[in-house]
Structures are given as C-alpha cells and as structure tokens.
C-alpha cells in the first residue's frame, strides 16, 4: 500500500507528472475525436446543400 502511495507521489513531483499525463491524454483524445466529428458535419452539410432546389448534381 505504501509502495503504491510512493509511486503516486512521484518523489514529491506528483502535480507535474500526473498533470502532464492528463494533458497528454486530453490532447490525444481531442485529436482523434475532432476530425471525426468534423468529417460528419462536412458530409451532413454537403448532403443538405445538394438538396437545395435549383442545384443539380
């Protein structure tokens, strides 16, 4: 138990170490999620635009 606590304490640098891990995780997830949602919105926009009258394929 104490070994685990020592591990999480990171020799007194826990705030730096774990916030770096957290920030890296957030950036990695955002980078994976943002293009996906952007692609979905783009395709939706293109599909909606095509449905407008007066525009033929």
């Amino acid at each position, binding site marked *: 138990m104490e070994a685990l606590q020592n591990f999480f304490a990171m020799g007194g640098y826990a705030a730096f170490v774990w916030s770096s891990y957290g920030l890296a995780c957030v950036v*990695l997830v955002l*980078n*994976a999620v943002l*293009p*996906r949602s*952007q*692609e979905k919105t*783009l*395709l*939706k926009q*293109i*599909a909606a*635009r*095509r449905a407008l009258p007066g525009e033929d*394929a």
Partner: protein
Amino acid sequence: MWGTWWVWDARLTSELILLFLYLGYIALQNAIEDRRVAARAGAVLAVIGTVNIPIIHYSVLWWSTLHQAASVSKMAKPSIHPTMLIPLLIMIAAFMCYFAAVLLMRVRCEILQFDRNASWVRELARGPSGA
C-alpha cells in the same frame, strides 16, 4: 533533473522559436480569408520554418549550454540506459503511428472540403455514411 524550468539554453531557445513558428503558422492560416491562398502562404512559411529543424538538432553541439549533447541519435552506442531507451523507442514508434492516423483523418476532411462539388463527394454525402 536540471534544477530549473527555464534558462536561455540553446536547445530550449531553438524549441521556443519552433513554438513561435507554429503560432505564426496558425495565425497566418486564420488571417487569410481565401482558403487556397491561406494554404499556400502557410506552406511557404512551413518550408521556411524547416530551416529551424537542423538548428534544433545541432544546437546541443554548436553551443554547449545546459542541455547534454546527443544521447540517442548518434552513430555510437546510445549513452541512455536500456531501461529508458526501449520504452522511449516504443513510444516514439507509437506516437508516429498515431500522428500518421490523425494526419490521414485531417487530410480526408481537407479533401472533402476542397472537392465538395465533385460528384464522388456528393455521392458519399448522400450515401448511408452521410445520413
């Protein structure tokens, strides 16, 4: 541990210039209205910014300030301990794969945006994936 979070070390300073290049690239991209012109201007800035890459790499050799000299990317045996070298190499490979995947996803969006009038994009948008 170097005992400091910032000094005007050659490696740190050249990396700071790289950060400013990134910020300049983002600012330039957003400042120009026309997407094609913005992409061209950004590409020119990116090519010019590449000059900084060898400077960053050799900064630890040209100016001996706080940062140690090359410890991994050199011809001789790396002076970093294997217990750190192996995870480092694995993480480098993993991040490169991740970068390639994200790059392809973003390029896909760019192609869809630029070719939005092409018939294959319209078909794709009309299809089940776009609904």
